[in-house]
């Protein structure tokens, strides 16, 4: 796990087995370089993780170094949705709508334990991981993660973007939720993702 060693970007090697030509790989490199270094974040801060996100954006950690100095508080002008904090069920349709309003290409960072898994809030009101609502690219663990943790996640996302290939047509497809249930993954998978774990298994249950 973690960041793989940065590939050598000064030379372009041509793989004769590959179907991709020199021009498309070179164009890929240019496009991905541009995308990865000008990600405009859409902050979706709902809890204490948003405080750490603000610290990351402020001068000491300076998100602007990654080309992210422009916070897009409008999904139409955003590239990466950073969900910082727990998402209650009442907000589930809102974050789904915000994600659908973002233009392609778009990515999602799930910041913190609550956004990734529901965290300690294994209760009736909180979504057990935003990946049950929208696809997630990078999960940042922590409660809340320190700014270094979020920057590490952003760098992982940049690495991911730099490896994208234009010839891969699965990347830019929109999620299409099931029209009857509005879920984009099967209900059994949601139940499996939402299974309690760790200390949460042993918590007092009041069911009579």
């Amino acid at each position, binding site marked *: 796990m973690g960041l793989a060693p940065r590939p050598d970007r000064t030379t372009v090697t041509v793989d004769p087995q590959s179907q991709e030509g020199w021009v498309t790989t070179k164009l890929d490199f240019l496009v991905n370089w541009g995308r990865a270094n000008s990600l405009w974040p859409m902050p979706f801060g709902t809890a204490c993780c948003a405080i750490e996100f603000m610290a990351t954006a402020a001068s000491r950690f300076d998100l602007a170094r990654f080309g992210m100095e422009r916070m897009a508080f409008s999904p139409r002008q955003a590239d990466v949705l950073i969900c910082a904090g727990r998402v209650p*069920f*009442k907000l*589930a*349709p*809102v974050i*789904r*709508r915000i994600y659908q309003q973002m233009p392609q290409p778009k990515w999602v960072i799930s910041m913190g334990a609550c956004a990734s898994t529901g965290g300690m809030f*294994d*209760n*009736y*009101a909180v*979504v*057990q991981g935003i990946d*049950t*609502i929208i696809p997630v690219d990078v999960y940042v663990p922590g409660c809340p993660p320190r700014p270094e943790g979020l920057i590490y996640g952003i760098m992982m996302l940049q690495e991911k973007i730099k490896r994208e290939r234009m010839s891969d047509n699965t990347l830019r497809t929109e999620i299409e*939720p099931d029209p009857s*249930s*509005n*879920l984009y993954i099967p*209900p*059994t998978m*949601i*139940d499996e*993702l*939402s299974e*309690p774990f760790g200390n949460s298994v042993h*918590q*007092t*249950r*009041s*069911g*009579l």
Partner: protein
Amino acid sequence: MSAPFSPVLAGHASPEAEAPRTPRNVLHRGGPSNPSAGRIQQRFPDAFVRAEVVWGDTTVFVKPEHVFAVISYLHDDAAEQYDYLSDVTAVEYRDLELPIEMVWHLRSLPHRRFLRLKAQLPKGQPLRIASVWPIYKGADWLERECYDMFGIVFEGHPDLRRILLWEQYKEGFPLRKDFPLRGRFSRSEQLRQALAANPEARYSMEELKIADAFEDLPQDMRRRLAGGEKTGE
């Protein structure tokens, strides 16, 4: 109502009102009782159940059917002047034999007094209690929250519907002890119901004021409401 605004100075009605006590000299049980407790006992002998003083705060238990009369007296009487309702809530104990307790936190700024009023609602019958909205308009959202979480019906409340959970929430009342911590439905079903909500819907016919003002609404808003727009399924 049209009287000029005059600031309420805490303690101005009782020059002999004691200074606020520090935690250092407060007894756990007993100690000086709030004088309002004795006056409630004198004036409402049928309603009064008992009074106790815990950590310097007086709690008066009254019968649920007399709550409105007692709170009206506490609000209106010149010797009481409880002008601020700071909280309305309820307590359910883990021992299911015990009744649900309704709690009102009342504060008198002129007399610098605090009074906690409780009423016990027995189990096994509909949980109904008089609303204090006619006395304190601020009770509106407090009682809606109490209804949302416990399912206690406040009779006389003008607009009793859920406030924290969405209006179509089907799983029950979350702070009741028989409510499972993770809710009654599976996670996928909970998510399905939540995602069925329409984030664009800002108005609902169940909202009293909107229903009353329907004729005066703009054309597009009337069309949306008449088309049955709801905030969820």
